[in-house]
């Protein structure tokens, strides 16, 4: 049958099972949007293309399916770049389709022309410029295949507007094969054998679990391994939920703001088993003193991750789920009670903790808000975050019950990720509570998507832990830059403050007023200034029929502890200020 390029795109997307497309139209993707008008795919009109890319990302992270976003040429395409880079760093499968100027004017500085594939090349797994309509269907099939297999990632397809209009005889490519692309799935049996021997011989083994475990869908296999060989599990920021938080073998998070006990276990273990983690500097601290006594096994689907920053004894390249199954079949029962007891001791010595505000008019503690949320939602809600202190508190105080329930920009650290990604996740799971734990700075980066949430009736909850600051920046300035708060205060001219001239934030006018902001959009806005209000407000939010903003005023001096200062070793963890 004869079809236009635009019709082909829509048909291919439908056949891939796409449920949502997030994006904004413009001159160069109008033929595509015209065909979407009649499609059963639900179109979500966002207010900014960055929002579209994060929504597609939130959908992808929460479901495990490929998220799809679209934009017009030029500014539309460049606005997508942050979202693609965010997804790229965290290995999230996305397909982004952008319009491009007509093929005959590409390179002429045409109106709204940008070298879109040039812009996205370093931040995508692969990208395409389609210059012939007969390649289009193939390219889309390949894009979905590449995005979702191996180490997942975003794929960008740039389609000139004349290609969207061009007609050809169309037949759907049922099969595709890419000779130069074949990810390793099965682990090498010899390497698995070696890993097995190391695990059998270990006395103080530790599972170091990263986001790859969730991406691979290997959480059940992870649990089997942990239980069979009696190995405690520590997770990275990206792996919150890879092990149920209430499992007796689950220790908690690792890294810069992880637990004292997990980081100490990392330093003292005699065998580290890394599962889908990539030895990020926020986890390892100073490399020369990282886990000095351990043999290291590294399971990873990406051969480029092996030995990238830390030398390992037994690398196993393959899909974690497949590899762990293989390993578990041969794994004998083990017992490491003394080691596990030892870690529990460390945890008792320095658990995550916070002190109540001792002031006359005490502030709400951010940790308490998240604790209450955890209690009310039993740790089963989907949580998204911005980037900063609130993100770290969310990791510390909202350990998840399930995988794919903690959506955060770990690799790129993209402020503004939280709110739009919560919309994407809530669209996928309308029955589940979806809560964005955000910072006042981060929220302002993408808060225009409130209109999208209202129009699409997406009942997300945003909890702004409002410290009137770019709080994480302030924390670093307080600790390492002599308390010179340069451009981190969100209520001062030029953002400049010193500790001496710090007023009580509650006496200041915060711009914008987030409660009025919520009301302006038809959302529910509540400001919380006292501890007693927290439980009631959270319940009200969870029952709300419209999106909610809880503007929780917290103290600007609140800091995230423990902390391993950047560049220091894990042994140099600062437990708190005292």
């Amino acid at each position: 049958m004869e079809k236009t390029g635009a019709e082909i795109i829509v048909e291919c997307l439908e056949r891939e099972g796409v449920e949502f497309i997030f994006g904004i139209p413009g001159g160069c993707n109008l033929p595509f949007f015209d065909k979407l008008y009649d499609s059963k795919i639900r179109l979500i009109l966002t207010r900014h293309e960055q929002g579209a890319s994060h929504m597609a990302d939130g959908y992808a992270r929460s479901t495990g399916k490929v998220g799809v976003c679209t934009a017009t040429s030029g500014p539309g395409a460049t606005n997508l770049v942050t979202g693609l880079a965010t997804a790229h760093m965290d290995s999230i499968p996305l397909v982004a389709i952008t319009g491009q100027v007509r093929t005959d004017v590409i390179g002429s500085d045409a109106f709204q022309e940008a070298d879109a594939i040039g812009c996205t090349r370093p931040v995508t797994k692969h990208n395409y410029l389609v210059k012939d309509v007969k390649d289009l269907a193939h390219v889309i099939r390949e894009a979905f295949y590449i995005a979702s297999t191996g180490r997942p990632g975003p794929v960008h397809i740039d389609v000139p507007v004349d290609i969207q209009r061009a007609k050809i005889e169309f037949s759907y490519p049922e099969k595709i094969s890419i000779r130069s692309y074949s990810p390793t799935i099965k682990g090498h049996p010899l390497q698995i054998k070696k890993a097995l021997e190391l695990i059998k011989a270990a006395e103080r083994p530790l599972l170091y679990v990263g986001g790859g475990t969730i991406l691979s869908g290997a959480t059940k296999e992870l649990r089997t391994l942990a239980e069979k060989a009696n190995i405690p599990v520590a997770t990275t920021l990206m792996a919150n939920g890879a092990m149920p938080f209430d499992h007796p073998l689950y220790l908690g998070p690792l890294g810069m703001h992880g637990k004292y006990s997990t980081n100490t276990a990392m330093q003292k273990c005699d065998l580290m088993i890394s599962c889908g983690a990539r030895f990020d500097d926020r986890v390892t601290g100073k490399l020369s003193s990282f886990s000095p006594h351990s043999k290291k096994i590294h399971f990873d689907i990406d051969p480029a991750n092996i030995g990238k920053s830390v030398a390992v004894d037994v690398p196993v390249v393959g899909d974690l789920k497949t590899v762990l199954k293989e390993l578990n079949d041969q794994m004998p029962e083990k017992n490491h009670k003394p080691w596990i007891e030892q870690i529990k001791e460390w945890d008792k010595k320095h658990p995550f903790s916070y002190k109540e505000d001792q002031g006359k008019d005490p502030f709400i503690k951010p940790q308490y808000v998240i604790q209450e949320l955890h209690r009310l939602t039993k740790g089963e809600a989907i949580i998204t975050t911005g980037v900063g202190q609130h993100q770290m508190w969310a990791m510390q105080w909202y350990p998840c019950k399930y995988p794919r329930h903690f959506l955060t920009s770990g690799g790129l650290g993209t402020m503004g990720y939280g709110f739009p990604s919560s919309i994407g996740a809530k669209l996928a799971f309308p029955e589940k509570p979806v809560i964005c734990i955000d910072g006042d700075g981060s929220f302002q980066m993408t808060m225009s998507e409130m209109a999208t949430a209202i129009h699409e009736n997406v009942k997300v909850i945003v909890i702004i832990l409002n410290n009137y600051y770019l709080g994480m920046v302030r924390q670093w300035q307080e600790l390492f830059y002599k308390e010179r708060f340069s451009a981190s205060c969100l209520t001062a001219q030029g953002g400049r403050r010193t500790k001496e001239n710090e007023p009580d934030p509650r006496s200041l006018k915060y711009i914008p007023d987030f409660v009025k902001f919520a009301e302006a959009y038809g959302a529910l806005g509540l400001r919380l200034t006292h501890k007693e209000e927290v439980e009631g407000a959270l319940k009200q939010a969870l029952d709300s029929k419209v999106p909610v903003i809880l503007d929780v005023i917290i103290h600007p001096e609140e800091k995230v502890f423990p902390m391993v200062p950047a560049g220091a070793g894990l042994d140099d963890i600062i437990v708190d200020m005292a």
Partner: protein
Amino acid sequence: MESEIFVKAGLLMKDKNFEPKHTISILVENKAGVLARISGLFSARGFNIDSLAVGETDDPTVSRMTIVVKGDEKILEQVEKQLNKLVDVIKLGDYIEIPHLERDLALIKVKADKNDRSELLQIVDIFRAKIVDVADHSVIIEVTGDEDKIEALIRMLGSFGILEMSRTGIVAMARGNNSLTI
């Protein structure tokens, strides 16, 4: 010259600051954008590519690139892994420890009056190069060989005055059974 003998004996490798040259051949899909993808991986890490040669293979859908680059060994190893991951890269080989041939072709335009020509011819002969064009005041010399040979010839021709030079960049191939094919 001496240093290269040591490199082959693997001795200088221990010196942290010594960065040996790597000659890398890559079989890639013969498509638009592939070169940018590959060079991007080097430039993003601040690596300068010493030489780059690209051409079709016997299979017109496949191109072969040969890249000569030096830099931090660990980073280079990472770049090679990243190159291997590119969807358009079919196969990659690093010749650093493999017996192989390297060839570069240079066209060198040298200042030469009638009375310079016999001396030039002698040099050209020794290097098994060719004079491929003669004009009133210049000649063009074509030479093929490995880098050392070409550099040596360039040094010899320096005293005549080099007017212009163009080099293809190195192409490489392993000796014997060791072949880079699909």
